[in-house]
């Protein structure tokens, strides 16, 4: 078990370094001068040169990379060109919002997908199951981008009950110790504030959750149906247990492995989807930030963001491997 962890972490570090190199190269290849974009017209060449020197854009590429790597290893990602703040601060302030959104979407997807998969298994070989399959097959085709906009349409025009943008009503955004607004408001008992946050998060969460839920429904239902054919389920049925109990107590834990692995992979896509979904709902997380950073060619910020996303992906993959191993008693006691 320990050997596997070391192996994975090592691989992760290598991948992360690779990511950093690629990004670095990409950004240095960019035509167009980011500094010139920031400077007011009429600035003197000396000012531009000074600014370039400040951001270290004059030195040869390898030197730049070396400087950057040294800085990164010590935790200094430089200063954002557009926001004039240290990149680490910017990332730290925006990351919690996205973490809350991604996990909320994950929970919704698992509950929704799991519930429908179980319902479909109980209804197996009936018309209901066929309907679920048909519906789900269409759901599988639709990406979060389309869901987000469909929800905007629904709640802007038909049911104007939910706020369409932002994370929280501005006047309620006071008195938070951390940036984990939802978590904090729930833990400190400020449920009215929590409710407000949830109403803001509802649509982006749903948009992100639906594609994942569809994937879960398909795979979990299939695995459950296979598990239900096993001898131990038959024996439990003979012991007198009811159908729902059989699905949940006997079949589920044997069926969940492959779904778990796939959910982990799909979760990385979900996190990737926050980029556009946050944009659509003007939700202040790192996804939204990423788009701005790229459009404005904010190198330090882009580098920091790409590394951050890469790190998140790698962590998710490692976590999934852990959970799969944990769930299989045979591997645990190997």
């Amino acid at each position, binding site marked *: 078990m320990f050997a596997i962890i070391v192996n994975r972490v090592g691989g992760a570090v290598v991948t992360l370094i690779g990511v950093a190199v690629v990004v670095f190269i990409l950004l240095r290849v960019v035509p167009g001068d980011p500094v010139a974009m920031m400077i007011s017209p009429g600035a003197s060449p000396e000012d531009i040169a000074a600014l370039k020197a400040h951001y270290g854009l004059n030195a040869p590429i390898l030197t730049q990379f070396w400087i950057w790597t040294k800085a990164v290893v010590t935790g200094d990602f430089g200063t954002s060109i557009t926001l004039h703040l240290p990149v680490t601060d910017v990332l730290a302030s925006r990351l919690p919002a996205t973490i809350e959104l991604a996990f909320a979407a994950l929970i919704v997807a698992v509950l929704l997908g799991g519930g429908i998969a179980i319902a479909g298994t109980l209804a197996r070989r009936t018309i209901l199951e066929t309907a679920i399959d048909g519906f789900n097959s269409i759901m599988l085709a639709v990406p979060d981008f389309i869901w987000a906009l469909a929800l905007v349409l629904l709640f802007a025009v038909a049911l104007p009950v939910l706020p369409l943008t932002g994370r929280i009503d501005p006047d309620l955004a006071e008195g938070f110790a951390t940036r984990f607004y939802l978590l904090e408001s729930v833990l400190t008992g400020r449920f009215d504030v929590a409710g407000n946050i949830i109403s803001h998060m509802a649509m982006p969460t749903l948009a992100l959750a639906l594609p994942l839920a569809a994937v879960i429904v398909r795979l979990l239902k299939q695995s459950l149906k296979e598990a239900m054919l096993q*001898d131990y389920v038959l*024996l439990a049925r003979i*012991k*007198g247990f009811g159908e729902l109990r059989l699905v949940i107590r006997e079949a589920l*834990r*044997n069926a969940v492995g492959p779904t778990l692995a796939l959910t982990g992979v799909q979760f990385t896509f979900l996190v990737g989807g926050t980029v556009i979904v946050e944009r659509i709902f003007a939700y202040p997380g790192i996804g939204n930030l990423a788009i701005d950073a790229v459009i404005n060619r904010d190198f330090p910020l882009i580098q920091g963001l790409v590394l951050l996303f890469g790190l998140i992906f790698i962590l998710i993959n490692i976590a999934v491997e852990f959970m799969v191993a944990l769930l299989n*008693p*045979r591997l645990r*006691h190997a």
Partner: protein
Amino acid sequence: MSTPATPSRLAIDMLSAISLRDGNRPVLRQVSLDVGVGEVHGLVGESGAGKSTIAKAILGIVPSQVKLTGGQIGFEGRDLLKLPTGELRALLGRDIALIPQDPSTALNPSRRIEAQITDGLRLKRGMSAKEARARAYALLDEVQIRDPARVLASYPHQLSGGMRQRVLIAAAFGLEPKLVIADEPTTALDVTVQKQILRLIRSLQSRHGTSVLFVSHDLGVVAKICDRLTVLYMGKVVEQGATADVLNAPRHAYTKALIAANPRYDQPDTGLEPTPPQVIAELRAEIASFDAHVAQAGAGISHG
């Protein structure tokens, strides 16, 4: 049909079934048998004779390709075939239990042994977690498992085949059912372990006064622990009676052939003789005339 020495617990009467996939080929031909209170009744036959169909009919798990066409299964004064699902489910596990054939697939690989024994106890006997755990421990002790605590905490893959079968036997008898169906419980085990398991079943059965329907293709195994026997060939009862009577004075040629086919280790020159072809031919003729008789009777009824 012979009758048991004690009052009847399970009374199968004229049970018939056909296979829908095989062009309505008969699977059971008016099978009747009686299992008395505290009796171990052997159901013997080759594979395909219909033994497991009878067991499945009792448990209500007959597969969709088999259709029961007649007869009844009397248990505690009720016909199991006519019981609504809810009532049958209430009966199962509490009054009727199963010892399955293959211990390696009958246990859930992802659940600990303790959970798989206690869940039945808690559901059917309303025990609390603590009570159920204590009872599970006692049960494992009863089936002569040396370290019950360790086994309870284990997963199935950590136990040997013999141990798993003991666990399944413990789970089956643990609910103190009135009838236990043992479906070839020793087939998947080593010969050395078989004897122990048989002895175990016999001792548990006599201690709790449980009736046992012992399904097997092996006459040798059945001879060791059964009080009475039913011999089945192609879904038809060809011999029935007390074990000693059947073995010592078999009336049907097929039974004789079965006895001859059994290797007896104390007589090295005997055994493993295939059923002689003329016996098979006689059997086929017997069954054909039976079927014709049944068809005629059916036609007669519909005419009348």
